[in-house]
């Protein structure tokens, strides 16, 4: 039995977001939505995290940062792109400094749409990520 899905700890990274999506991510932690009831903890530490939640697009400056955080996370891990910007660049897509969505540099598993993404959608994305986490940890333990 895998416990990965019962205790998804996440790290939230703000790429070049307008902060709209970040506020919605934090709203998930408030008493109204309370994601901790699913065991979700916002760790802020890549080494403790299972889910990498990214808001905002990727630019030249944060490209390395995002990769670094991803590499520091122990597997199994899942990447969730939150908001239009993280999915494909959103309204900043045409900007000279924006490279595009998160999938330009990382293998994104779950895309959460919306501008800003609604807390319900984010929770839905996290729940999907959790199911994927289970699958990944199963395939890892079989691979052993």
């Amino acid at each position, binding site marked *: 039995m*895998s*416990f*990965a899905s*019962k*205790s998804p*700890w996440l790290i939230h990274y703000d790429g070049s977001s307008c902060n709209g999506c970040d506020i919605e991510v934090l709203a998930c932690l408030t*008493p109204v939505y*309370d994601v*901790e*009831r*699913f*065991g979700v*903890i*916002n*760790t*802020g*530490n890549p*080494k*403790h995290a*299972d889910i990498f939640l990214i808001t905002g697009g990727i630019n030249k400056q944060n490209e390395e940062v995002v990769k670094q955080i991803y590499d*520091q996370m*122990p*597997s*199994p891990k899942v990447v969730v792109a939150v908001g239009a910007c993280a999915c494909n660049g959103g309204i900043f897509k045409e900007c000279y400094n924006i490279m595009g969505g998160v999938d330009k540099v990382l293998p994104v598993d779950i895309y959460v749409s919306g501008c800003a993404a609604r807390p319900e959608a984010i929770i839905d994305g996290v729940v999907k990520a959790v199911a994927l986490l289970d699958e990944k*940890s199963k395939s890892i*333990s079989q691979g052993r």
Partner: protein
Amino acid sequence: MIKIVSTVLYLVFAPVFGGLLAGVDRKITARMQGRKGPPILQPFYDIFKLFSKEAIVVDHLQNLFVIGYLVFIIFTGCLFFYGGDLLLAFFAITLAEIFLIMCASSANSAYSSMGSQRELLQMMAYEPMILIVAIGFYIATGSFSVGEIITSQTSAIATTPGIFLGYLYILTIKFRKSPFDLSTSHHAHQEMVKGLTVELSGRTLGITELAHWYENTFLIGIIAIFIINATWWSWIVALAVCALAYFMEILIDNTYARVKWKVLLNSSWIVAFGLGILNLLALYYIK
């Protein structure tokens, strides 16, 4: 015989008790904040997950130190539940603490070495009171041995109320609860992420968590031996006092913001001298 049974019970059930305590703690905390909160078994899900994850080791010495931490905490608890020497138990737990600090500082990372420095400070804050507790038990009951303390005619608390309160005060530091959770915290996202445990991941983090559960069981046991005497009903009173004390810890955790290290150090020394030493002097006087 009964000594060996209680030691084995501790070895097997301390993690269960510690985990349930953490689960209840998180539930009550969530309710105090108007949230629904995670299931009671959440800490067990967390720890099983940690043990199934890949462990990224920054420095291989870390593994050794973390295991040293666990082993000495378990040794402390076994000694205590065997009815052994209280003073020795306190020394062993200090050694365990040192292992944790070494582990954190071996990682060569800013957050984790800051965490280890703060942990040292916390030790400086609570150690005097811990020693006073041991001496207090000795003067009140005539023995350092836990087995004799719990079979004495009167409860230790009857003559050591000040020391009891002082112990409760430093317990907030030991339980890593706000306002004294300087070095690391149960709540994620403090100013230096997770402090002490920031560089630990997967299995190694799981081991520190497990050790913490063993430690909490031991610390609550100390509260109990203040109350327990030769009568059977004192055990029930002790249980109630332990539950109440832990509830107060949760309440304080949720109602106070973290203090700076100077406040921590000064206040715990003032408590140690104000309540602890005065109580000791009074004990000398009446004995």
